[in-house]
């Protein structure tokens, strides 16, 4: 058995590591809270803008056929772009590896030429794996400003409109609750009005991740409340409004994906650090037991020596 000095040194080092993991857990928890409240705040805007687009498309207007290049499905899909949202730092369990493997899976399934757009530094792992990376965006650990997504949104919109890509996907981690995060791939462009993915109306409750059926049901309920037919007056004209509205919708969606991803990241880190703290606790307990045993053994040995010496003298 190791001597007491060595064991006590190990106990010390594990204890200080535990302090660090505990602190990281607490920081992650605080960041997660902020990220969740940001997601909830964005929802009002997202819902209202989505409603407006639905109204626009449903509006019975004869002079203008509502079509928009961003709403049309292209008959032939040649090239796909995937926006991969990862974290900047590690220590968050399987967060990054899960989303990366999900993205790879989808590339395999589609079997089309695919370009990757990376967001966050950890995504660069795929650099040496024979994937085509066209851009690498930085992101902040805590997203608070929607302007962060504008350059990215502009880039994909331009590339899509110029015909470089026929489909743009976002790979991000959906925040369901503090213990569950689901990697998900969502179609960003073209915008589909049939909401297979929940872009539609989402309730005000704090449950962030939603199944598509759930979202569809809510949308149905929400829109059926006002049943009169909207006959809008457009200024300057419907086409122009749609031209402005749809890119905005893309930005909102991207922003939401960013927020969901960051909420997931921080909660993943929180639970990873929580586990690390618990493991450190176990280790300290075990080491303390060893330490006490070693101490007792050495005392016993000493007593044995002394009594042996006393016995020898007495004889």
């Amino acid at each position, binding site marked *: 058995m190791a001597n007491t000095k060595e064991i006590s040194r190990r106990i010390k080092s594990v204890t200080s590591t535990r302090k660090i993991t505990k602190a990281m857990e607490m920081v992650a928890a605080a960041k997660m809270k902020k990220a969740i409240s940001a997601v909830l*705040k964005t929802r009002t*805007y997202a819902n*209202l803008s989505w409603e*407006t687009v639905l109204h626009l498309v449903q509006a019975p207007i004869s002079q203008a056929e509502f079509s928009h290049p961003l709403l049309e499905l292209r008959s032939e899909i040649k090239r796909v772009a995937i926006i991969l949202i990862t974290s900047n730092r590690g220590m968050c369990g399987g967060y990054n590896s899960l989303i990366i493997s999900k993205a790879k899976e989808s590339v395999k399934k589609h079997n089309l030429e695919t370009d990757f757009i990376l967001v966050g530094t950890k995504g660069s792992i795929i650099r040496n794996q024979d994937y085509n990376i066209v851009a690498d965006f930085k992101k902040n650990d805590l997203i608070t400003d929607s302007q962060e997504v504008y350059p990215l949104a502009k880039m994909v919109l331009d590339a899509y409109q110029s015909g470089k890509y026929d489909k743009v996907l976002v790979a991000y981690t959906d925040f369901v609750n503090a213990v569950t995060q689901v990697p998900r791939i969502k179609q960003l462009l073209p915008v589909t009005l049939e909401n297979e993915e929940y872009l539609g109306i989402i309730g005000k409750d704090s449950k962030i991740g939603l199944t598509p059926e759930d979202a569809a049901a809510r949308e149905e309920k929400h829109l059926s409340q006002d049943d009169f037919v909207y006959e809008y*007056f457009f200024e300057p004209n419907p086409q122009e409004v749609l031209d402005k509205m749809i890119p*905005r919708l893309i930005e909102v969606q991207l*922003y939401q994906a960013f927020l969901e991803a960051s909420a997931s990241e921080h909660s993943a880190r929180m639970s990873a650090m929580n586990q690390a703290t618990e493991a450190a606790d176990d280790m300290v307990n075990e080491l303390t037991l060893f330490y006490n045993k070693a101490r007792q053994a050495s005392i016993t040995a000493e007593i044995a020596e002394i009594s042996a010496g006393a016995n020898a003298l007495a004889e």
Partner: protein
Amino acid sequence: MDKKTIKFEIVTLERVVLKEKILQVSVPTTSGEITVLPGHIPLISILQAGVIEIKLTDGSLDIMSVSGGFIEVMKGKVVILADTAERAAEIDDQRVNEAYTRADELKKKLKDHQGREFFSLTARIDKELARHRAVKRWRRLKGIK
């Protein structure tokens, strides 16, 4: 006397700026300033940077600055989706002025008056100007009160 009111909501991506029942609202659209009163026909329009003036149910006025976005007028309801919006009471005028001068100087330094940078700077100047105007209007209002 029971006045007719409109449900009014102004939201940005980051927050709900105001949600209240109001009597009337004036907004700057790309095709000129419009005032919405109860019973207005359904309308969708694009906003430009400027000042929004709201008449609350108690007859007092509230001023906001907006940097662009959309307005949707429905039956008895007005929704503004703003890129950014602030209530005049929340704006710090000194910082607005500083931001404006900074943007203006940058614009003067730019040689190329076509590029994207130029447009984004112009938009920034418009935004700061709108904020400045909102504050001025707000001050004048308060002075009268």
